[in-house]
């Protein structure tokens, strides 16, 4: 990743991380290493130190829930899923994202009205 112009976009990515995590959790239920692996190599690559607090916040907001599942090696793991509210939130965010995208694209080459 090139760092210089990246720095300006950092707050944008930070803000979108929650959205991105919700989108991943929207699929089949996942545990934290799955989410990390899914994001590794993308613009949203993150770490457990960020992800656990974020997931606990989303859970507090009622957007995700988790259940314990036994694992072959080691202690049981938390598998996360969206709640109904979470699903509605992802849908709303998707719509909003499309709208933002359209707005930004339009601003680039729209004829000036003024």
């Amino acid at each position: 990743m090139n760092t210089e112009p990246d720095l300006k976009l950092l707050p944008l990515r930070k803000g979108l991380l929650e959205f991105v995590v919700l989108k991943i959790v929207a699929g089949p239920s996942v545990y934290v290493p799955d989410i990390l692996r899914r994001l590794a190599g993308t613009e949203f690559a993150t770490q457990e130190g960020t992800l656990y607090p974020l997931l606990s916040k989303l859970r507090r907001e009622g957007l995700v829930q988790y259940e314990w599942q036994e694992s072959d090696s080691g202690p049981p793991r938390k598998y996360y899923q969206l709640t109904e509210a979470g699903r509605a939130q992802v849908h709303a965010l998707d719509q909003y994202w499309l709208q933002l995208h359209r707005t930004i694209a339009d601003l680039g080459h729209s004829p000036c009205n003024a």
Partner: protein
Amino acid sequence: MQRVITVSLNHNSYVLEEDAHARLEHYLAESAATLSSNPDRAEILADLEQAIADQCNRRLQPGHTVITLAELQPALEEIGRVADPAASESVNHGAAAETVTRPGLEQVSEGAWISGVCNGLARSASIDVTLTRVIALLLLFVTGGTMVLLYVVLMLLIPYTPLQLNAPPLRKIPAKCREIVTSLRAKIAAMV
């Protein structure tokens, strides 16, 4: 030869070398401090402890049972510093800003003689530690030993500063004091 310390990470025991233990203690203390206003603090810390345990297990060479700094350090780097989403919100609301700026009275283990009370007092008052030690010793003679009691009380009450990264290991007595006080506090916290 290194001494080893057994710790419980999310209710499973792990054996660490002394310097790895100091590093881990620092990481967890720092994480706990970052999450101090987070209602799910205990749960997130348990998640992190499990993540650390998993990472170390993965890195441990076959046949080895003791976690060294060589395994712990990359594990902690991969896990990363804790970022509290709730805290960044409250900064936006202008609330949590002043708590970080000025550290209160703390015990400083690095360079301490006993537990770091004089060291910490000197740092908060921005004076030389020799001065606080001389005063403490004078008080010890004047009070005929009662000062020892005061020292113990302060030692139990004043929080420790997190250990510095990459600093040389603590001297024997400060390290021992810190260990005893930390475990005593944990026991008291468990009882309450």
